[in-house]
């Protein structure tokens, strides 16, 4: 797996310890309804999902489809209306309210779209605080935080306040914070939405390597098309349910990525199905393939692979 992601100089190093904490997350026919009566909203409906240790699952879907709701339930922030969520032997959805903080603290690492660092604390303190919440003594907590942040390339930024950090740095601090209590599962909601695409990609690759090298499960909710290549599995959530997974194809004429199910046009030729962004592209493709020369267009297309 690791070999798929080449290590280059520009790539961020990651902590090189193996998680002592890996677990399987099993979601069984989970439903979440908000409100009641006329204003009732079914945000998630009978969703089932298993996330294996070390697996990266990307959940995509239109706005309002229930992605955040599902992620909140996975992270024991929200109780499902129906169904069960199990983390190895523990059924999270049945635990008493006062057991949940501990589960969140030790089993889950959360990463948010807007980083959510505490503005009054330095980068180091933001990370150490969460270790301290889990019972680490002050000095030990700071040591652990500093080690982790150094591994994430933040050695020079330990004592900076969040306002003095770039977006990418903030998200790396947040990742260090998510990792500091050695969680089995990382949950990220739109972790790259506030970052430019290059930094977003770096963060995604970092998450992937955390999953693969440390055997942690990572569940990412994102609109970001470009990050699908880092996931082991991409799930499409729509109207609170997983729909058949969206598969992408490339328009052979203009090179645009199109969803197969939503392609404006398609064509079967010699047992292969081609998908197009528009009828125009298909017409062009057909003309080219069938050798019907139309003006000097063909000569233009000849050089194409």
């Amino acid at each position, binding site marked *: 797996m690791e070999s798929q992601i080449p290590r280059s100089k520009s790539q961020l190093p990651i902590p090189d310890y193996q998680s002592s904490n890996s677990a399987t997350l099993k979601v069984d026919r989970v439903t979440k309804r908000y409100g009641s009566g006329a204003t009732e909203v079914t945000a998630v409906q009978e969703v089932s999902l298993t996330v294996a240790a070390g697996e990266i699952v990307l959940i995509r879907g239109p706005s309002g489809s229930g992605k955040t709701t599902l992620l909140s339930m996975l992270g024991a*922030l929200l109780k499902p209306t129906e169904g069960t969520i199990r983390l190895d032997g523990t059924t999270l959805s049945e635990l008493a309210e006062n057991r949940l903080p*501990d589960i969140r603290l030790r089993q889950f690492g959360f990463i948010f779209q807007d980083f*959510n660092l505490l503005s009054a604390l330095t980068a180091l303190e933001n990370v150490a*605080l969460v270790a301290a919440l889990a019972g680490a003594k002050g000095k030990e907590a700071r040591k652990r935080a500093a080690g982790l942040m150094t591994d994430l390339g933040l050695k020079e930024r330990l004592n900076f306040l969040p306002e003095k950090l770039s977006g990418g740095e903030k998200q790396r601090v947040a990742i260090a914070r998510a990792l500091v209590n050695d969680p089995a599962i990382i949950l990220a909601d739109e972790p790259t939405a506030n970052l430019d695409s290059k930094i977003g990609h770096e963060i995604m690759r970092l998450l992937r390597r955390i999953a693969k090298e440390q055997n942690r499960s990572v569940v990412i909710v994102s609109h970001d098309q470009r990050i699908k290549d880092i996931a082991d599995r991409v799930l499409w959530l729509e109207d609170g349910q997983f729909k058949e997974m969206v598969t992408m194809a490339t328009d052979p004429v203009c090179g645009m990525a199109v969803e197969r199910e939503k392609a404006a046009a398609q064509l079967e030729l010699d047992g292969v199905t081609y998908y197009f962004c528009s009828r125009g592209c298909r017409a062009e493709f057909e003309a080219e393939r069938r050798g019907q020369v139309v003006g000097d267009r063909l000569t233009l297309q000849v050089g194409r692979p």
Partner: protein
Amino acid sequence: MILVAFRNLFQNKIRLVISVGGVALALLLILALDAVFSGVEQQVTAYIDYSGADVFVSQEGVRNMHMASSALSASVASKVKAVSGVASVTPILYVTNVVVADEERNLAYIIGLPPNAAMGGPWRVVAGERIPSDGEAIIDAGVAEKSGIGLGDEVKILGEEFTVAGLSDGTATLINSVAFISKRDFAKLRGDPGTVSYLLVKVEPGGSPERVAARIEAQVSEVTAQTRPAFAAQERRVIKDMSTDVIAIMNLTGFLIGMAVMALTVYTATLSRRAEYGVLKALGARNGHLYRTVLAQALISVALGFGLGLAFTLLLAAIVPQLGTNLSLLISGASLVKVSLVSLVIAAFSAILPIRQIAGLDPAMVFRGK
């Protein structure tokens, strides 16, 4: 989490200054007023403390001087003198009246002293006589200075002209001063040569004032005999009784102001970090952790306010006597304990509302971007 409390507090300097300053001023109000009255309590017994008497004998039932009137038959003096353990007896006359100096009226304890009085006279004389002869008065140096008079000038006491023959020091308080005239003049003006007000008793060296006082009460009829400390304590009680209501009102005012300032700042400080508390909850902080953070913020601010308020009061106590007034501020242990408790109550109360805010926070809100 205490670190979070500190950082949250110190990140917003303006809010910190307002809350700490506000609490400091509120506590200053309580502390300074207490100190003023403690100072008055101490000053008011100056005459008793410096009288040199071990035991004070008064008319039966009269237990102090301020706002009291005591009358003893002159013959009681020899009966008291005969009690075993009594070394000497000095009869004095006393009334609260005014010293009129150059049209200016100064409230004063007027003391009528016998010639060669062994006790009860001025304890520090800065100029002139120690014991007034007939037609003479010894008045407080500060009062004299304020009225622009000096030795040899005339003052009016009990409606009669007296020549200032001596100036005493330490005989003035915020509210009054002590003036001394001869016992004979005093008696003549009151038209009653047969009575005295108090008998000042010196006990024999090594004798116990308590026992002598008890013996006097047992052997001499219709008198009350108290040791000097007991007599002084009674005097202080009178002042305390008079000041209790004023102090209570001011304490309540200070408490309410302090509370309002504190509650508002702790509340807004918590409210402005609502989202961050939500993040902490989502990350796995227990409610208890967050409550402690808020409470710590309140306690730290109040403690800083207390320190600042105390510093202000000490500064006042140091400066005020330099201003030439007779005001003296005395910070008592009891007052410090009281204000500390008031501070704790302020901190606890101001944390209640924010804590309820936090208790109601839904940790799931963090994924919704606040």
